[in-house]
């Protein structure tokens, strides 16, 4: 994308004040988005986001300068601005590029070949399916988006890595209303491939139907009772519990400065012995996948927890210096306006050996969280919270009724030890994860699991 002579000049300029590592990152992303509300296309948008950033490291200190302008003069200016954070003499030369890594797009049907009418048709099909599911569906919002995200990384160690990451997502929210009350249901699958996703991977009508079913079910559900009870969390987006309750605390952003409950726990039991957990950025065409990370390292499959033992953290270059830990192909950023840092890709509990029905049958009284909403965590204390978007109350091992408004809270380190069942079938679901380096696509996943007790928040009384 940039002439190699310019790359060398930029990387060299960046090292002039004593930095020991410099990196040039360029990005060019085209995206299209569309929203259909109640069956009517309301907005359609095209975006092109492009720019560059130069990073200089000196030991564990970092400086970053970015610009929307990618001309030679602007890139040199970025290099100077980043270098101005340090005031030493030049110590390191930038090596000429000697490693070339090229990641090819997983898209079979690139978005540039798709017309707006194709996008409208998808939204229409999903909307119709949602509306036809029930007369109680009063509103629908269907949103479509596609991205063609291209990156170029060059560094002073002679690395050049390019990646091209397509991704697309369909999100349907259905609203059911009656007697002045409203409840919603949402389904939003996404993959790191081209428009063929809607033929090969996503059942468009099912997306609309599922969203509508949840909304209608919740409209007729009483409020969830509050209390501390056993909870079964279904597969797929249920894996958000691993993402929030544990793996944010394994990222170098928190471990590197001692701000995680999992600091110093490598090789120790941090979860129940039946727990195995993985972060895998290599899975072709998944929402959180990439060929090379945003520092140009190949994506990796990282076994985070094996039989309950912590095996590795998620570590970027700066983190590896702070922690004396190898890099794990986990460096990511939303775009050129962020320096990269350690992040998740596709993160999931590996399949276990327990029977999915048995774990409900033997749980006594508690909650079955069929669909999870989002959540968040304080990595320092491990305190997490999740919304449950579709839940059922279980009594004597049998589903009693759906319940609305449930929230799960707890501390990550405690909840991991309380997992007493892990099912056999694992699947994943996409989300957007926000942290220091912006908002990035990540998958979460798990088989159905059971936690022996967890605080359930709700505003209901006895059922």
């Amino acid at each position, binding site marked *: 994308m940039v002439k190699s002579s310019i790359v060398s000049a930029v990387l060299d300029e960046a090292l002039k004040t004593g930095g020991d590592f410099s990196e040039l990152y360029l990005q060019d992303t085209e995206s299209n988005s569309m929203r259909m509300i*109640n069956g009517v296309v309301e*907005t359609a*948008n095209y975006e*092109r*986001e492009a720019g560059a950033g130069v990073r200089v490291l000196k030991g564990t200190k970092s400086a970053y300068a970015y610009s929307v302008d990618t001309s030679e003069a602007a890139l040199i200016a970025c290099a100077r601005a980043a270098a101005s954070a340090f005031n030493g003499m030049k110590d390191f030369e930038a090596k000429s590029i000697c490693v070339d890594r090229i990641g090819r797009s997983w898209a079979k049907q690139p978005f540039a070949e798709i017309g*707006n009418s194709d996008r409208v048709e998808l939204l229409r099909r999903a909307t119709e399916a949602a509306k036809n599911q029930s007369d109680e569906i009063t509103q629908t919002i269907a949103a479509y988006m596609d991205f063609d995200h291209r990156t170029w990384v060059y560094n002073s160690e002679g690395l050049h890595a390019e990646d091209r990451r397509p991704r697309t997502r369909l999100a349907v929210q259905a609203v059911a209303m009656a007697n002045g009350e409203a409840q919603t249901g949402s389904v939003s699958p996404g993959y790191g491939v081209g428009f063929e996703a809607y033929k090969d991977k996503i059942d468009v009508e099912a997306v609309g139907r599922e969203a509508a079913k949840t909304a209608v079910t919740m409209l007729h559900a009483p409020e969830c009772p*509050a209390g501390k009870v056993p909870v079964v969390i279904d597969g797929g987006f249920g894996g958000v519990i691993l993402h929030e309750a544990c793996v944010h605390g394994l990222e170098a952003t928190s471990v590197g400065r001692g701000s995680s409950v999992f600091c110093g726990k490598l090789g120790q039991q941090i979860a129940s012995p039946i727990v195995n957990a993985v972060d895998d950025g290599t899975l072709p065409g998944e929402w959180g996948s990439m060929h090379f990370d945003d520092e140009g390292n190949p994506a990796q499959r990282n076994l985070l927890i094996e039989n309950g033992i912590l095996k590795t953290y998620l570590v970027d270059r700066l983190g590896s210096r702070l922690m004396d830990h190898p890099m794990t192909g986990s460096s990511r950023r939303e775009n050129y306006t962020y320096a990269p840092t350690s992040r998740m890709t596709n993160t999931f509990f590996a399949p276990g050996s327990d029977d999915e029905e048995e774990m409900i049958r033997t749980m006594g009284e508690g909650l079955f969280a069929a669909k999870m909403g989002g959540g*968040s965590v304080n990595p*320092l204390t491990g305190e997490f919270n999740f919304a449950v978007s579709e839940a059922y109350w279980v009594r004597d091992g049998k589903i009693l009724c759906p319940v609305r408004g449930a929230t799960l809270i707890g501390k990550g380190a405690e909840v991991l030890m309380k997992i007493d069942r892990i099912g056999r079938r694992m699947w994943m679901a996409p989300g957007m994860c926000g942290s220091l380096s912006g908002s990035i696509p990540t998958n979460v996943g798990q088989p159905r699991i059971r936690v022996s007790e967890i605080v359930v*928040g709700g505003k209901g009384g006895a059922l």
Partner: protein
Amino acid sequence: MTFSEFRDILFKLALEKGCESAEVYASSSEGFSVTVLDSEINKYSVEQTNGLNLRVLVNGRNGYAYTEVFEDPEELVRHAIDNAAVIESTDVMPMQGACEYPEIPDVTDPLGAFDEKEKIELARRLEKDTLAFDSRVTRCDQYNSVNTSVIKTHIHNTLGLAADSEQSISYVIVNPILREGEEEHMGFGFKFRPSPDDIPGVIKESVENALLEFNASPVDSGEYRILLRNDAAADLIASFFSMFSAESVQKGLSLLNGKLGETIAAPCVSIVDDPFLADNPRAFDGEGVPSEKTDVIKDGVLASYLYNLKTALKDGVKSTSNAGRPSVASPVGIAPSNFYITAGEKSFDELKKELGSGLIITELSGLHAGLNPVSGDFSLIAKGQLVENGEAVRSVDQITCAGNFLTLMHDIEAVGNDIRWSFGGGFGRVGSPCLLIKKVVVSGK
């Protein structure tokens, strides 16, 4: 290509290709931020952005296309026209023509005048003074920072609109980590457009917030009367802002639909949207409409929704100057200017006495997931203090507070006098004083 060259070509091409009108919303910024940890610069960032969003009107419909690369005007116009062609909404989507703007006062942003050295020095002081403030502060974390930026915005269109603004927006974040025994807690304090004299106050607040989290435990599940602290109240109201948006109302996505003129809150509650507040004023909104102050709730009665040009035309009213864009790349939506619950008379401490027995809630988290602006339901993880006989007796964590926003608005028994703004100030922001609330359902032990 410069902005004005690019703009002129876009306008010419758009009109040639049959657009009724065309508009650019362009924003450029220059920013700087620095974090000092362990007495050395840990993170240092120099920022420059520039983006342009083209909006065209074709057969009464808007199409958008955004770029950060000022190179290919034909392609951008083509994308915008393509996007207008698929719009099926029958709403008319007008643009603002040439107009006069109200005078607004200059806002002082002392850090805006600092040179780089002074900003770095301030960041050093931020860390040093935070560490010195309390022996339990062991370190500062990575959000501890001094940030400055200057943002220029231009909204120009072929109807003669030329709205330009330049804003200097600086802020500091204080992010201490405190340890006592085995427990560690993180504090967070911030101030927009601070003067150096404000820094000690921000440090004090961030450390005191973290101190409140030690030796905390849940309370028994049940119904509690609560005093919602101003910052937690502002966060909660910000999360339900879309209920007041005419866009949500017209789409049937707000429970306030059809409730104009009805009592939707306790009589002590009034909400205004005031673009003229001295510390964060603006002359025009996100589509160049001159600013106006709006009463949203007056003494508990819903007085107005918030409108942009499109939604106002549909309801046959005037725009309330609340057009907003979540980002430069986004289509025109509806956003607050300074949207807040107006102050009552009593202080936080007086309301604590009035609470007698109950909970002070100091923090609500998980707002992006644990609440639903369509249904109004919320169930959120919370922190706070247990209050007995008007005094805080211990800290509380690992509880959830659940309720419904509309019920909560009716259940407000008193409004404090201490307005606080949610993080994200600068452009649109939401504020609230502390609120004494009759009951929420708490899940804990």
